[in-house]
């Protein structure tokens, strides 16, 4: 599904990613763990196409198609979704207007018809109910006045509505209390499917006890330094990242 090969990326001339190689298969939930500053969030932004990062080397392929030349919106239309660590507040843009614009923009790029208004409202309400998002929240401007947990739930709602094939979750657990964490994790788990893959980026193991990954990768200093199964997450929780942080960057 997602193939990252020897990816190098800079910000303001400073190298952050130093040769990331990683592959995620359809149906797989892969986790990336790592200490602060290891490049986890940068990886998610580079995959999604944020402009300020410059890719100096390597490839990112989504189902064999290179993403790096595409604008962020084109990547989204191809089925990529990034759940933001810090979802942005957009005053003056109504949540429903935004959701509809996003959904129809993607459908249009794929040559599909716009969604019928009744179907749209039904899908939004269904997803919102599952995530405990009230109708009142849907009437507000996007993320404005939402708590941290509400914003994360709204990200998952968008994910459910847009039905991406490749979901990248950037520190979705940060700022969540245990109840919110459970709701968000359930939302993600209900979207797990044979033709959909997840890349779950997190600092802590606790998210991974709710969203149980198939593979765990450890990132340090801009590279994947160790890969394993779910047991690796537990191991890291017990021992910390000290072993990896000490490794040379070469």
């Amino acid at each position, binding site marked *: 599904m997602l193939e990252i090969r020897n990816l190098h990326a800079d910000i303001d001339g400073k190298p952050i990613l130093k040769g990331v190689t990683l592959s995620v298969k359809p149906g797989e939930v892969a986790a990336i763990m790592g200490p602060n500053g290891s490049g986890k969030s940068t990886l998610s932004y580079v995959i*999604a*196409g*944020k*402009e*300020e990062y410059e890719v100096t080397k390597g490839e990112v392929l989504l189902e064999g198609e290179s993403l790096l030349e595409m*604008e*962020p*919106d084109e*990547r*989204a*239309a191809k089925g990529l*979704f*990034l759940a*933001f660590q810090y*979802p*942005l507040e*957009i*005053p*003056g*843009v109504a949540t429903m*207007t*935004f959701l509809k*614009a*996003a*959904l129809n*923009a*993607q459908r249009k*790029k794929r040559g599909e018809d716009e969604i019928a208004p009744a179907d749209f409202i039904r899908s939004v309400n269904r997803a919102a109910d599952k995530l405990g998002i009230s109708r009142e929240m849907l009437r507000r*401007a996007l993320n404005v006045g939402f708590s941290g947990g509400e914003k994360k739930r709204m990200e998952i709602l*968008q994910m459910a509505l*847009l039905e991406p094939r490749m979901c990248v979750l950037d520190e979705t657990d940060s700022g969540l209390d245990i109840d919110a964490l459970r709701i968000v994790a359930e939302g993600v788990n209900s979207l797990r499917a044979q033709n959909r893959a997840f890349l779950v980026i997190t600092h802590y193991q606790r998210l991974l006890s709710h969203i149980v990954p198939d593979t765990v990768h450890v990132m340090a200093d801009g590279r994947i330094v160790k890969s394993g199964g779910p047991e690796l997450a537990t191991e890291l929780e017990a021992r910390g990242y000290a072993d990896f942080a000490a490794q040379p960057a070469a």
Partner: protein
Amino acid sequence: MTALTPIRTKAETALLAQFEELRAELPKAGAGNASRKAAMAAFAATGLPHRRIEAYHYTDLRSLLREPAPLAPSAAGKAGRSVEAGRFLGDLGAHEIILVNGQLMDGQDLASQLPKRVSIAKVTDTAPAILDANDPVVALNTALSRETVTVKIGKGVKLDRPLHISFVQDAGAPQAVYAHLKVVVGEGASVTLLETHEGPNGIATQSNTGVEIVAGDNASIEHVRVNAEGDKAFVLSSLGLSLGRETSALSLNLTLGAAISRHQIFARMLGEEAKLRLNGVAMLDGDRHADVTLVVDHAVPGGESRELFKTAVDQRANGVFQGKIIVRPHAQKTDGKMMSAALLLSEDASMNNKPELEIFADDVQCGHGATCGALDENLLFYLMARGIARRDAQALLIRSFLGEAIEELSNEALREALGELIDGWLMRRA
């Protein structure tokens, strides 16, 4: 004693000559000759304001107005003609009053169209009621307007349909139009006033419009001005507002057209506990220049004023906002807040923001803010990451930015019509 002979620019000389021509045309002994003469004398003393006159610093009329266009010929005696005026806003179900080239058309059967206790008249005395006669743009308006159109809304009259006053430039060649409108809103009356300005594209028309709204105690007013003049138009306009006791007024200016425009607002809080909101939306592109300069004068205690001006500047356009809140010594408990925000959409776009407070009372709450910036790249990325193309993401953000200034309009049809003007501009931009 040696008389000082001021050195006049070619334009000033031409304006003085136009005044003489107009005087020859107007009845010799008509009412208003004295005020016209006084106004022209005031103008002759100051001349066209230039950059060293603070209020005109960013819109130097001496250098911008090199050649006054000939005055539009009088329409007096011409039969009323149908003009597709104000249609760009769609059907708002409004009572319509149309001024062509500054003059109320004969033959418009207004009396039967207007609601009860709303009257309309034209008089030849063009003296301002509340606008500052010493302002050179106002002085020219007084001297060169052919008539004053006065609309009176009776005491306690509540109009459920808007009153639409449509100013139309009917021009086949460059011409100058001077227009003067007075609206007197009676005590306790409630009205939505729509003022639109239209003209042809591609013709260097000039206009100078003075609008005065005098509101009685406890009146409630929504006033919307839309500048949709042609793309070569040079538009000067002055709005005078005076508010009585416990009157509430919202006045919104939307700038869409004209190559050069300068809109000045003089608002006077004359009755205690009056509430005023001045909002603005400007959409500027090409090489356009648009200046909004306003003064809110709190003369009595307990007034509340709010200003919110939103400007989107694209390409090589230039926006100006100058706002001044004056609080007089006795105007205690005044609450004034002013905000001007600009979005610069290109490298060459520019904006000049100048908010000012002049406070002479000690128990007041006043504040102002001004911002100027580009669209937030992080917000754009967020929208694009959801599949929305860059141009559409920009449009969504610009729409929400500008939309804030029209949100408070209570007339829904009008609010939607203005929203469509914004959307239309954004679509042409894309």
